[in-house]
């Protein structure tokens, strides 16, 4: 993996990915220290925990895992002076299809993550922290274990870190291979040795009743890395990167039908979808045209190249102007993608050109979610497999007229009615594919079976 080094595109602003593929860079602590590593930790200890929490609030940092929840607000839910211990968990269960950013941080720059975590633990007064890494990342787990050992040797972990009086231990916890373990309460259940069934909220908000029913902060890898830079430059300065309410940088993972897929780091909202596809990723393959983009991991709602979106932008004089734009002009930030009916999600941008059959694409996604539904609550458990069976049957020529309507109503019966956000994650693809490409589904359903007209197969 490290052999495929590539230089950053001139339009990128690499903060989190500064050291990814950097010539001569190694993931050991010596390299990290020579580059000024753990200086922000030393700076953090000159601040009080509430000061750091406040800096994070001021920075406007939003979670990079998928939901985009403001990090400082999440930290603020931890009430100081509680009788129970506080835990911090780094969510390294990166499993959203189309997303491959956290693994690079773990593989190539683990100490950046550790430094961010130690600062964060200090800020929320967590004395015990875990890195929950997905089971499919065995090498990442080994690298993290080594990095933790190095950090301990250098006194960045353990008792009285750097004379600050602050004690902290961090452990690696390996998952066993389930998408749902990325859902923070499912992750917590998994750590407690149980099936990763997400908890009902209320009452089980992690900040109140998290790991072992103690206050717990769960943050994504990229989010925690950002904390280091907020401490370095201050929340106010950080907030100047990107756009209001969409601050900082974002690592985007581009996959699909582009010439040069890969990972890129930009100011949030600093680039449009068209610029990303054509300028950064070398455009589509010869002779192809853009059909659709899934902008934030496979659960984000698909966007069609034919769509026109009305978005409001704030002028310098404070007035709002409404513009109609196409998919290629949509800036990639949290609020705009939400406003056009999708989401920034995990930063996984999946590009599809005109050769892609939408029923096939949706079936591919449905297959994933049917396989990954934990099965705890009824709508998601039964609906995700049902949707997959319908799209698979359609693909095999067994479609019937009512399939499109059935698909839509099954998805509608899942979204908003489940214990966790997986319900939306598995329903949104079907809902959006049908909304955007209905005629293709109708045509596929009408297409009579070529051969035996076989219907379903067992999943």
């Amino acid at each position: 993996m490290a052999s495929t080094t590539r230089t950053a595109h001139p339009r990128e602003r690499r903060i989190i990915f500064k050291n990814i593929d950097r010539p001569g860079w190694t993931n050991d602590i010596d390299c990290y220290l020579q580059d000024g590593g753990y200086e922000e930790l030393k700076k953090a200890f000159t601040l009080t925990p509430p000061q750091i929490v406040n800096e994070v609030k001021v920075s406007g940092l939003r979670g990079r895992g998928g939901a985009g929840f403001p990090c400082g607000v999440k930290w603020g839910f931890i009430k100081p002076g509680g009788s129970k211990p506080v835990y911090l968990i780094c969510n390294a269960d990166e499993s959203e299809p189309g997303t491959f950013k956290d693994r690079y941080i773990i593989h190539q720059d683990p100490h950046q993550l550790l430094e961010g975590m130690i600062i964060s633990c200090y800020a929320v007064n967590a004395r015990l922290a875990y890195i929950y890494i997905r089971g499919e990342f065995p090498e990442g787990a080994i690298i993290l274990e080594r990095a933790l050992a190095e950090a301990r040797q250098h006194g960045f972990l353990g008792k009285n870190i750097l004379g600050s009086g602050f004690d902290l231990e961090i452990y690696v916890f390996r998952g066993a291979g389930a998408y749902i373990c990325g859902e923070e309460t499912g992750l917590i259940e998994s750590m407690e040795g149980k099936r990763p069934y997400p908890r009902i909220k209320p009452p089980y908000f992690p900040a109140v009743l998290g790991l072992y029913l103690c206050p717990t902060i769960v943050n994504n890898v990229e989010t925690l890395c950002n904390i280091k830079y907020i401490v370095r430059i201050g929340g106010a300065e950080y907030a100047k990167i990107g756009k209001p309410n969409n601050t900082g940088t974002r690592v985007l993972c581009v996959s699909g039908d582009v010439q040069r897929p890969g990972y890129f780091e930009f100011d949030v909202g600093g680039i449009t979808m068209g610029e990303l596809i054509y300028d950064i990723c070398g455009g589509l393959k010869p002779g192809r045209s853009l059909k659709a983009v899934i902008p934030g991991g496979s659960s984000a709602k698909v966007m069609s190249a034919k769509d026109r979106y009305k978005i409001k932008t704030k002028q310098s004089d404070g007035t709002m102007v409404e513009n109609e734009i196409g998919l290629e002009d949509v800036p990639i930030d949290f609020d705009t993608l939400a406003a056009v009916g999708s989401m920034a999600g995990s930063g996984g941008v999946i590009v599809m050109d005109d050769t892609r059959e939408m029923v096939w694409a949706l079936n591919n996604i449905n297959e994933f979610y049917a396989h990954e539904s934990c099965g705890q609550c009824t709508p998601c458990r039964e609906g995700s497999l049902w949707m997959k069976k319908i799209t698979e049957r359609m693909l095999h020529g067994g479609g019937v007229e009512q399939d499109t309507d059935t698909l839509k109503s099954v998805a509608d019966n899942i979204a908003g009615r489940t214990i966790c956000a997986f319900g939306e994650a598995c329903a949104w693809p079907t809902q959006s594919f049908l909304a955007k490409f209905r005629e293709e589904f109708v045509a596929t359903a009408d297409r009579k079976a070529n051969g035996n007209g076989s219907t379903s197969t067992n999943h």
Partner: protein
Amino acid sequence: MSAPNELLNVQVDGVWHQFQKGTRVIEACAQAGKFVPHYCYHPKLSSPGNCRMCLIEMGMPRLGPERKPEIGADGKPVVNWIPRPQISCAQDIAEGMGIRTDSPMVRECREGVMEFLLINHPLDCPICDQAGECHLQEYSVEFGTSGSRFLEEKVKKPKRVEIGPRVTLDDERCILCSRCIRFMKEVAHDDVLGFVSRGSHTYLTAHPGKLLDSNYSLNTVDICPVGALTSSDFRFKMRVWFLKETKSICTNCGTGCNTIIGSRQNEIYRQTPRENDAVNSDWMCDYGRLKFHYVNSPERLKTPQIREGHELVDTTWNSALLKAGEELKRFQKDEIAVVASARMTNEELWLTKKLIDSVGTSQHDVVPRTGEADQILMSADRNPNTLGAQLIGLTGEKPGSGLKEIAEKIRSGAIKAVVALGENLTKLGLGADELKKLAALIVVDILPNETTRSATVLLPSSAFSEKRGSMINIKGRLQRLNRATQPPGTARDDWEIIRDLIQQLTGSNGIYLIEDVFKQIADSIPDLNALSLSRISDKGVQLVEENEEASATV
């Protein structure tokens, strides 16, 4: 902290009600007369919120500019409705909360969940034991649709799994509500059940190398809302809608779990626990539950018999009672002993005491039965009415302490006549040969044993399910047995037999109804003064302050 009895204002389907603080939303709805369908929720277990059948619309008071609730024209808070449906099983009510249990959104949610639950369900109701008491059937009629849109092949799962010695599992019928798992963990304290595999392929099983063999395993069958867990004993025996249901109590230990006896055409098919929070919550042990088959036994004693030489020969009730009376009159009071049972009802024990008084003997006791209390329901006292026997004076502080002396006197020949009521005298350490030496052995019982075979007069009586009467459980709760079935042949109710024995000795005493017996007890025992047999409610009456040391701890 707020006052424990604080009442909160909650709007349910447009009407404002007041409920106790701490009430679950779903329970508040029920109190308001609005039933919210549910599968996974069980009031005695934790709430996982997984079935999604209890989704309702919920809202909280809309806050004005000063963060205070806005008050509407009706003087009540204006409800700000949450756009997403909410489960009602896991949240407590809050002041000013609004609930809609029957809105279009709620109906749509229920219809959706019903459809999801049924697409992979085998729909084998014609051969399913749960049919007739199945929540899938019931809610399907009430909240589902008539047709199916499902064109796919159903998921296949294990069937006819003997998940334990008394429970059979059909995973295809299971709706994965996890009630059984939670019961085993939270109530039975034997965490043997769990789900394996994922998504729609998830199925219930016992952990590797384990069985669902707890003495409480059959409660999982009761709380299973569908036909996934079935009782191996009851399976395929009877359609449930044919069962006559009789409220009764279990007589296999001092706890006295409240039960429902399911019978048809004078045969018991099953016993299930009946909710009583003062006794057994919603549960009962497998041991007590399944201990009814002897009632249906073909061996049951059906006809009174008297000894003629070495033989017991059938006779009429009149001649059998006459002979019993004559035998008792032949002996001095010190030559007579009465061995009664703490399995007898208060009414039977009361009359037995009268009989003892008529005879004049002081040689009487009951046979104790003890075991280990299990800290759940099963009491160390395996007799159901020890307190009754003590209260009425059949035995003393230590039940059974007089038996040794009685046995010795039987052996020595000092005691020549014994009345044995529902107890086998071999439990006193006496052999059949020693029993045969008795000049008179009057036995009242339901099944043959060494004692009945040694009787001079054998009077067939009734099992627990065949009689009315009261008992007092280990916690001092007066409870009532009700008649579910009739005794076989010419066997009679025990209290009538004992009354008639007394009449043989003293003439008529004017007792024609069991209510009269209870009235006599009530008139002479202060704890029971204000009561009548009919007035003991279905859930019993607490006579004395609960004994903290009592073993039942559910």
